């Protein structure tokens, strides 16, 4: 039960969406874009978020794309995590999506909603960070395509009225050797204690994390340490743990010290697994 009223809009085009959003905003209705609604509904119920209107983007064809366009894979923001796993075009992304929430919820949570979520994990961003994905954003000036790093800094940073339309990924990444490790406190279905995932491309290992800090990230200096062949695996792991120790969080799911322990193991395991690939 949500204890406040809001208006519901389901535009059919990108322009309609932006227009109505800005109009509602002007009217002081604090609109929000609405994907799967799972986070918006649960936060509204407990009173930690309120809004006067929702703009549901699930009827906009551009947000529903899922497939290839020349050399890129296009993933609409309104496709669900289940759509991603069932199609399975990008195994790393499928793995990621298949470990967010539970199977039933995956049929409702949208790709865009997860990327834009308030909850700090936003795990689907990891494959995008690893593949230098490009994001298409709709706003009052129409569509803009941007490199992920430009709009995703800890979280998705969009201007008022903007929303995510789709992500595109270069095909070459889809077949690269990859790893996906999601460690939780104890339960399979849980927020990550650490999610570490990565790709090996031209002999170089890329890595990105969620759960470790209060935001998901990929960092060049960490990757350099990871690939520093002058060091043993465990030395590299130690270096990374040390480098990250300032951002590693303590919370209900695990203490920072334990996260460091798990991180170290995880890194060594990943390096062991990838060494022959």
């Amino acid at each position, binding site marked *: 039960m949500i204890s406040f009223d809001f208006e519901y809009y389901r535009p059919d085009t990108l322009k309609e969406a932006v227009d109505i959003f800005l109009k509602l905003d002007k009217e002081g209705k604090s609109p929000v874009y609405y994907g799967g609604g799972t986070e918006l509904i649960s936060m509204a119920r407990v009173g930690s978020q309120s809004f006067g209107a929702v703009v549901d983007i699930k009827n906009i064809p551009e947000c529903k794309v899922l497939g290839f366009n020349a050399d890129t894979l296009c993933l609409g923001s309104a496709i669900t995590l289940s759509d991603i796993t069932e199609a399975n075009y990008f195994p790393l992304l499928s793995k990621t999506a298949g470990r967010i929430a539970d199977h039933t919820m995956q049929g409702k949570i949208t790709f865009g909603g997860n990327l834009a979520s308030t909850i700090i994990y936003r795990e689907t961003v990891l494959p995008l960070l690893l593949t230098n994905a490009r994001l298409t954003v709709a706003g009052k000036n129409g569509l803009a395509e941007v490199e992920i790093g430009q709009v995703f800094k800890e979280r998705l940073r969009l201007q008022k009225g903007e929303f995510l339309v789709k992500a595109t990924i270069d095909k070459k990444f889809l077949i690269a050797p990859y790893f996906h490790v999601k460690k939780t406190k104890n339960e399979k*279905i849980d927020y990550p204690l650490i999610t570490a995932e990565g790709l090996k491309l031209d002999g170089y290992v890329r890595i990105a994390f969620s759960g470790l800090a209060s935001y998901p990230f990929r960092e060049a200096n960490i990757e350099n340490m990871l690939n520093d062949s002058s060091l043993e695996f465990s030395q590299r792991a130690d270096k990374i743990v040390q480098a990250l120790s300032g951002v590693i969080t303590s919370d209900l799911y695990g203490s920072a*010290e334990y996260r*460091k322990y798990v991180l170290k193991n995880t890194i060594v395991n990943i390096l062991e697994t990838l060494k022959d690939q």
Partner: protein
Amino acid sequence: MPKTGIGVTVIRKEACNKVTGDAKYTNDFISVGILTAKMVTSTCAHAAIKKIDIAQASSLPGVRAIITGDNCSVIYGPLLEDRPPLAHKKVRYYGEPIALVVADNEFIASQAVFLIKVEYEPLPVVNSPSEAIRQGAVILHENLGSYKTVVEDVYPKPGTNICDQKQIRKGDIQKGFFESDIIEEARFILPQSDHIAMETRTAQAKINADGTVFIRSASQAPHGIKKEISKVFGLEEGKVIVEVPFVGGGFGGKASIQLELLAYMASKAVGGREIKIINSRENDIVTSPCRMGLEAIIKLGASKDGKLKAIQMTYLVDTGAYSDTGPRLARAIAVDCTGPYNIDNVWCDVLCVYTNHPYVTAFRGFGHASYTFCIERMIDKLARRLQMDPAEFRKINSLLPNHTTPTQVKVTESNFGNLVACIDKLKTLINWEEGDRLEIGNDKIKAKGMACLWKTSNSPPDEVSGVFLTFNEDGSINLNCGCVEYGPAMKTTAAQILSEKLKMDINRIYVNMDVNTKYSPKHWKTVASMTTFMLGRAVLRAAEDVIRQLKSLAAVVLRCPPENLEVEDEKIYVKSDPAIFLNFKDLVHGYKYNNGNSVEGQILGRGSFIMSDINVLDKETGKGKAGPYWTVGAQAVEIEFDKKEYTYRFIKAATVMDAGNLLNPSMAESLVKGGMCMGLGLGSRECFNYGPEGEVLDTSLRSYKVMHFGETPQYLVEFVETPQLDSPYEARGIAEHGIIGIPAALGNALSVAVQAELDELPLVPETIWRIKTGGVL
């Protein structure tokens, strides 16, 4: 599937209703015009309430009433009256109800709740039971000395946080330790956790103009609600009617009375209109009572040849902010404090202490899963020190007939069963001989641990159960009893017992699934695995009552002495010539002769049972009898542990229980497995995490984790059947027991695997890592 009697697998009576959506639970009764009551709850664990600003909320259209602690002088408790239904001047736990909004619907009620502003002045918190008894600890209840005790055997200590103390003094503890060659000592910490019945607690109330109060509730204790509501609010008992439909799981959590009081107050505040109050999951976790926490220090001594000699224990029961059922949990722990072992010298103190945590009530196993973890860990530690096989060690120390329990009750085969047989069977089941720790490569270890269990009812000495039987004109029977159907199929068991006794088809026996105190005879509470025993005895008496009446009427019609007659298959026949018989249907509503003359009327059966032979325990020594019998068993858990990751998975979980006599084998197995699954949850993940200010951090199922599909082991369940002579068809209660030894068996298995002493719960990988490594990288 055979249709009649006991010892056969019977499908539960309400099965069809539960797979079609027809089974109605409290909230499924949605009447037009019903108002919604919603609680404002505390965001501090301990604070003075400076101000509750209800102005804005009151002016919201559709808000019909707002009640705060200032409008209500009631103070309540089933054993010790210490809890205001709405906090008054002070809050003592995070989530405590502070105000109650009554509004036209949930939409408005929720808005009003958000508009009520409470100002607090934080007080220092008591965040663990050991803090509670420390010198100079903050006192939660300054007026403890003036609180009224409801029962004779709670012993609060004014000026402290101790609301009750139970003790056991048996033998000579000093002599016992003197005779011990080896002594182990350890400390245990088990935080509180929650029932998480899938249906949250909820109640509805209405007061008619003539003063009749109608309550509908998701409760395990309809008759208890009737009694308490009438007592607390000074109403005539006959004017309080309580109805309980199907209940979506209880596990003890619905045996206490909380929302019913609030529902009555809410209805009263709006002139008696019908209202409903529904716990959100968040409220159900923190606001309504949870499972007790426990801290323990135990010292256990044995001789070189492995005989237990002496045990000294201090248990601190974390009862939270109010006593509720806490003192009874303390007593239950005292009664069975040694585990099912023969120890001549026992010294046990159980303190039931207040903390700024949510208050507690019964939980499946009634304290036993908690202390059993401590005892069974001790047993394993000692066995290993003695270099004895832990299974053998348990066997040679098992209680046997003519031994005495900690409260000095003489053990008999009937009242105790056969633990040694359970252990033997368990060893085979779990392949104990294979060894309890095997390195299986890849940093993985396969390990097993075991634990024994026992439990008696700890029920009040004068509790009753009753049954009414009426007949339909076609000869089928309606069985009316006061126990609640919340899962363990007790209504089906009652029908089975009746069908066995009357030798008739169980499908011709109809049982009321709901309970209404106006029509259903009182049944104490549907708790303590006592339903088969108490209700079963009442059913047998009711059956005897109708048999007697049927025979006497048939004797007149057939012109023969009643003792020549026998009952079977809805017929009364002459033993010497079964061809001479009368059908039930021709007798049960009176017998009509050919000329129309009729005799007798309806056959109405009644059966009543009261507990006997149970007494209040001696204050100094604990001597006394707390229940009619024990159920004993042995359990084991096998896990695969990853040395590098500190993670593990369950491979097998096994239970061998002495069931006395199995009434419904598949159901029994299923109940035991359900308990085991919950036990694995308690052992591996379930607990409250408290913040530094005493706030509970896991208030939703997102962070409070229970077992899920696919995480469970292979379950192995078998039974031993040692008849319990005074029970209906010699059956023992088994509904709770599957949970009791599982956390301990898991703790033992993991301690073996990890080669560390894991003496706290739950055993999440981080905890294991911290204990093993000291938490350093």
